[in-house]
C-alpha cells in the first residue's frame, strides 16, 4: 500500500492551507479566548466548497472524496480546531445523513444551503444519561396526527446554538431495535430551546450546548429516513465522522510540531539553540514518527472509504490512534516551549487544550477499541 496524492488532492490541500493560514490562524486565539463562533469564516468556507465536500454536485456539493476531505480538514484544524470540529460534524455526519436518507424536498430545503455554508448542521444524539450507550436515549417523540411532540434534553451538542438545522435522534417507541427515529429540527420550532452553553477546556470557539425540547411540535415531513430507522441514520455517518476527527487530530498535531520545531531553533539556552540538545531532538523525532503513523492510518481509512470498502475498523483505528497521538504531540510541544508553553500567548497552550477532547467525542476511544475488537473477532481469524 502506498499513497500518491493526485494533482487535484494536492491542490485542495494547498488551497485549504492557504485559506486556513490567512483567514483562520490570525483569529484563532481571540476566538478561543472570547468564545466567538467563526460565522464569517464558515461563510467563506462555504463559498470555497469546504462545507459540501462529500455531497454530490446535484445538491451544490463537490463530491471530492474522503481523501481530499481529510486533507482539507487537517489544514483547517492546524489553524483552528474549533472551526475544524464544526466542519467535521457538518460534512461527515449532517450532510452525509441528509444526502443518504433525506427526501428530495428535505435535500432542497437543507442540503443545498448547507453545502453553500448558509446553514451549519448539528447532530443531537447524546443526552445527560446516554453517551456511549446511545441506545439508552430517553428523548421522546410522540406521533399526533401530522406531527410529533418531542420532549427531552440533548447534551454536548456541537453547533447546537449557532447551527441552522439539527438532526435529532428521539425515541418513537419504548423499546426495540426500531424504537429510534431521526428528525430535522430548525430553531424556529416552538418548544425548541438552546439551554446551557458549556464552558469548555478547549475548542472554545465552537458552541457546545444543551438542547431542551418541551412539547416541541415537529411535522411528519421532518422525519429523516423512516420512522424507527433513526439508529441506521445515526450509524451511517460514523465512519466518515471518525475519519473527520482523526484528520482534525492530525492537523492539530502537525501545527503543534511545527511550532515546537520553530521554537526549538530560536530559543537559546547554554549559549545555543535548544534544538541542538539531543533530549529535545528525540522528543521532536518521536513527534514526527507519531504524526507520520497517524497520517498513514487516516489516509488509508479515507482511501478505503473512497474505494467503497468496509472501513469501520480502519476508521476507528485512525480515530483512536490519531487522537491519542495528538495528545502526546501537543504535550511534547508544550514541554519543548518550557514555561512559555503554559502561557496563552503561545499557540501550543491552545493546541494542548484543544487536543484533550479528541479521545472523548465522536465515540470515546474505549468505544473505538470495542469496535476494533468486535471487527477483529468477527473475522474469525
Amino acid at each position: 500500500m502506498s499513497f500518491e496524492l493526485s494533482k487535484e488532492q494536492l491542490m485542495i490541500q494547498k488551497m485549504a492551507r492557504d485559506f486556513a493560514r490567512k483567514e483562520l490562524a490570525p483569529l484563532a486565539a481571540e476566538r478561543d479566548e472570547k468564545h466567538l463562533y467563526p460565522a464569517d469564516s464558515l461563510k467563506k468556507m462555504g463559498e470555497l466548497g469546504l462545507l459540501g465536500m462529500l455531497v454530490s454536485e446535484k445538491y451544490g456539493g463537490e463530491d471530492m472524496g474522503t481523501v481530499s476531505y481529510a486533507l482539507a480538514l487537517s489544514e483547517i484544524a492546524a489553524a483552528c480546531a474549533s472551526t475544524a470540529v464544526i466542519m467535521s460534524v457538518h460534512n461527515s455526519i449532517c450532510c452525509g445523513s441528509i444526502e443518504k436518507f433525506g427526501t428530495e424536498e428535505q435535500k432542497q430545503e437543507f442540503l443545498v444551503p448547507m453545502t453553500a455554508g448558509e446553514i451549519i448542521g448539528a447532530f443531537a444524539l447524546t443526552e445527560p444519561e446516554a453517551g456511549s450507550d446511545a441506545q439508552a436515549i430517553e428523548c421522546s417523540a410522540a406521533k399526533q396526527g401530522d406531527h410529533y411532540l418531542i420532549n427531552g434534553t440533548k447534551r454536548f451538542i456541537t453547533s447546537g446554538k449557532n447551527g441552522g438545522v439539527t438532526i435529532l435522534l428521539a425515541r418513537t417507541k419504548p423499546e426495540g431495535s426500531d424504537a429510534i427515529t431521526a428528525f430535522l429540527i430548525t430553531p424556529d420550532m416552538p418548544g425548541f430551546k438552546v439551554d446551557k452553553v458549556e464552558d469548555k477546556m478547549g475548542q472554545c470557539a465552537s458552541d457546545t450546548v444543551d438542547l431542551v425540547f418541551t412539547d416541541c411540535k415537529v411535522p411528519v415531513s421532518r422525519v429523516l429516513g423512516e420512522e424507527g430507522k433513526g439508529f441506521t441514520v445515526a450509524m451511517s455517518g460514523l465512519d466518515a465522522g471518525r475519519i473527520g476527527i482523526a484528520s482534525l487530530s492530525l492537523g492539530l498535531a502537525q501545527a503543534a510540531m511545527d511550532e515546537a520545531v520553530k521554537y526549538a531553533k530560536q530559543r537559546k539556552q547554554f549559549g545555543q539553540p535548544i534544538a541542538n540538545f539531543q533530549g529535545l531532538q528525540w522528543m521532536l523525532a518521536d513527534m514526527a514518527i507519531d504524526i507520520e503513523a497517524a497520517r498513514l492510518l487516516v489516509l488509508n481509512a479515507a482511501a478505503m472509504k473512497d474505494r467503497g470498502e468496509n472501513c469501520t475498523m480502519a476508521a476507528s483505528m485512525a480515530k483512536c490512534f490519531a487522537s491519542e497521538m495528538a495528545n502526546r504531540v501537543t504535550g511534547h510541544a508544550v514541554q519543548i516551549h518550557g514555561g512559555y508553553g503554559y502561557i496563552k500567548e503561545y499557540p501550543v497552550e491552545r493546541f494542548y487544550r484543544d487536543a484533550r477532547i479528541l479521545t472523548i467525542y465522536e465515540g470515546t476511544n474505549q468505544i473505538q477499541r470495542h469496535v476494533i475488537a468486535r471487527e477483529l473477532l468477527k473475522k474469525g481469524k
Partner: protein
Amino acid sequence: MNILVCVKRVPDSSENEIRLNRAGNDIDTDDLVYAVNEWDNYAVEEAIQIVDKVGGSVTVVSVGTEENEEILRREMAMGAESGVLLSDPLFEDADGRKLAAILSAYIDKNKFDLVLCGAQADEGGAQVGGMLAAMQDKPFASLVNMIEVLDEKKLKIGREIEGGSQEISEIELPCVLSIQTGINEPRYVSIRGIRKVASVEIPTLGASDIGFTDTPLRLQKLEYFQPELGAGAEMLEGSDEEMADKLVALLQAKGGIK
C-alpha cells in the same frame, strides 16, 4: 480584452527558512516549498476582474520547468482561462533581461491587448515588466495600484508614489503594466475552480516554438550573504512577543521610553 499575466514560481517565504547554498552565491533550493509570486497573484486577480467587467480572456504564462505547472494551474483555478509554460534548457538560469526576452518572443507570436506583471518578485530585481515593454515597444507603467478600462483603446491607471501620494494617468492599449500588491484582494482558489483545471493539459512551448535565440547573461550573481552586523546594530531574536519585550527593555534602558 485579451490579457496576458506573467507569473513566477518563487520560494514561499511564509513556509521556508531561507538559507544560503554551499557556494554562497544563492539560496539553498533543496526542500523549499514554492508558490506563485505574491505580486503576480494580484495581477492575475486584476486581470480576472477586468475580464469579468468588459469580457475577453486571461492567459497566464510562466518561464521555468514542468514544476511551474503547479502555479499555472493554481492561477487557472482562480479563473484564468488558459495557461502556457515556456520551458527549454536554453531558458535556465535566466536573468531579468533574458526572462523579458523569452516572454517578448512569446508575445510576438500572440496578440494581447494588455500584459500584466507583478511589480517585483520576492527574490527578483523588478526588471521584467519594464524591459518587456521596451522590447515590445509598448507603453509601460510600474507600481500600478488601480486600473479602470476607459474604452477599447485606453486605460486609466493609478500609481503608488513613495510617501503615500497617488498619481493618476491615462495609458494607451496595448501596454504593459507592473502591478503593486493591494490593488485588489485576490480571491482564494475554490474547490470548484480546482476541479475545472486539475486535469487540463497545459501546453509547453520551447525556444524554437517561440522563435527565441539565446542571449548571453549580462548580470551574473557572484555572492549572496547576510551582511555582518555593523557597530550599533543588534538583531533581536525570538518569538514576536520575546522580541517586543526585548525591544521595550532596550528602549527603556536607553531612555527612549519611561
